[in-house]
């Protein structure tokens, strides 16, 4: 059994930022455990640019953004393991790691969960039809093209207009494939508007809102899909079915935090985010286990992942000093208009950052924080979109003396 102060599970954006932040706080006995054979996680396959606008005031490609942290990890000689899979996590903060060297036990004072997320699958959304080859989730396709140099298909239909689907529409077009269309079952795109612009409009790829795939054909390789239009209540509009000949179907239908280890450790999860419930310091229901990045809540901008990781390391430092005391346990109540809020609990009334997503796109909305009938804070939001995470800071003076906390959007 090897003892460590902090073990960080995951060497992607969140894990790297957390490691660097720990080191800056003079926490030296850290270990990053990464299952892939490189650091940087998902950033390494996100070769498009647009990363780092907030953090570094410049537009970087994913690998460039990752390298900024990898350089610091290497410079500061922060220990990390590659090709190492954490196969077990206990509430006592013990982990079992397997790699080519063997099976090792570690115990840490603090565990930082930074495992990121995985994609929803065809099975999970139950698309009927045949089982040919040629059906990929967008992230897997991205890995095969951007890291392994494969071409996955020639005539592509994409289901889901989240950012990954949009980015892949552009990527495939630039790689010489024909992207026939992007179908989105909601009446609005679930990705950032500027991505709809630079990934679809730029390449004349039609975006079919309120459409979904209802059948798949193919004997061997995919030969076509049937799309249909959905009505207001989500049912198929009769007569709207259309067959589209294609050889590849890309699914971009949602991301789910990797919560296997969290479950094993008995950590209480939030049903909506899919990630752990945390307090404002990022601590989960198991003392000493913290979470940040996509494993906590699915992010849309990596700069926020880094900020979140840095932020929860403050809590980690306090915990290691024995100062992360629980003064209260206020459950943050979710009012209308909001899909979820992180953190789910407040244990103190200090400066805290809240992250939200809204239920529907809208304009000129007001975010209201209340303690009973008293309004603590109001924030005007010019434009809201489920695809864009909102981060709001409440100060200790605003949170002082509250007995309850409810947040809603009007």
């Amino acid at each position, binding site marked *: 059994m090897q003892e460590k102060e902090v073990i960080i599970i995951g060497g992607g954006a969140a894990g790297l930022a957390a490691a660097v932040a720990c080191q800056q706080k003079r926490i030296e006995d850290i270990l990053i455990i990464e299952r892939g054979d490189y650091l940087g996680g998902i950033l390494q396959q996100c070769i498009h640019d647009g990363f780092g606008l907030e953090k570094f005031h410049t*537009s970087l490609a994913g690998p460039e953004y990752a390298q900024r942290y990898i350089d610091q990890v290497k410079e500061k000689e922060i220990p990390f393991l590659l090709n190492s899979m954490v196969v077990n996590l206990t509430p006592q903060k013990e982990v079992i790691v397997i790699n080519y060297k063997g099976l090792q036990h570690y115990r840490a004072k603090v565990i930082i969960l930074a495992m990121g997320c995985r994609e929803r699958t065809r099975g999970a959304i139950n698309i009927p039809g045949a089982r040919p080859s040629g059906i990929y989730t967008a992230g897997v396709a991205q890995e095969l093209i951007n*890291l392994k140099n494969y071409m996955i298909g020639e005539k592509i239909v994409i289901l889901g207009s989240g950012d990954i689907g949009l980015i892949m529409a552009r990527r495939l077009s630039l790689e010489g494939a024909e992207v026939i269309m992007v179908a989105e079952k909601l009446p609005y795109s679930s990705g950032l*508007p500027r991505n709809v612009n630079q990934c679809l409009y730029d390449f004349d790829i039609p975006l079919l809102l309120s459409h979904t795939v209802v059948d798949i054909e193919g004997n061997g390789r995919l030969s076509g899909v049937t799309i249909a239009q959905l009505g207001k209540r989500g049912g198929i509009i009769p007569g709207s079915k259309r067959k589209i000949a294609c050889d590849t179907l890309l699914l971009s239908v949602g991301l789910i935090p990797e919560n296997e280890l969290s479950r094993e450790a008995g950590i209480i999860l939030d049903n909506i985010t899919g990630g752990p419930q945390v307090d404002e310091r990022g601590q989960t229901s198991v003392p000493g286990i913290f979470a940040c990045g996509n494993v906590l809540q699915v992010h849309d901008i990596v700069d926020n992942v880094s900020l979140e990781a840095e932020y929860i390391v403050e809590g980690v430092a306090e915990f290691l000093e024995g100062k992360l005391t629980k003064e209260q346990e206020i459950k943050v109540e979710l009012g209308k208009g909001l899909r979820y809020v992180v953190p789910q609990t407040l244990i103190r009334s200090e400066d805290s950052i809240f992250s939200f997503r809204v239920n529907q796109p809208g304009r000129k909305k007001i975010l209201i924080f209340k303690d009973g009938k008293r309004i603590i804070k109001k924030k005007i939001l010019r434009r809201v979109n489920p695809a864009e995470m909102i981060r709001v800071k409440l100060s200790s003076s605003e949170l002082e003396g509250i007995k309850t906390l409810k947040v809603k959007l009007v």
Partner: protein
Amino acid sequence: MEREFICIICPNGCRISVEYEGINIKNIKGDECPKGKDYVKNEITNPLRVFTGSVLIENGDFSLVSVKTPAPIPKKYLKKIGEITRRIKMEAPVEIGQVVASNLLNENIDLIATRKIEKKKSLSS
């Protein structure tokens, strides 16, 4: 003629509406920073985009080095640059920012590396 653009310069994605005739701009509304104004001006006269892609690498710890154009290039060249990019091969190591190809299409279009590539270690480490 009036048209609305979604600016792509930063995540804000401001909706900027432009009144113009041919390439003469009469009015711009909705921009929240000077970059937005420049963006829509270009969209009308000569739309520009940053190209990103990958180039094959020999003997590196990755099989591909991701690349980008250091500045936005005319949108019409994107697919052609994509084709060219697929036909280049390089040797490891590669530093971020290193020029991978220059003056493509004789239009002063460069490609620079955006991923650091180290030489592949001979035995699995």
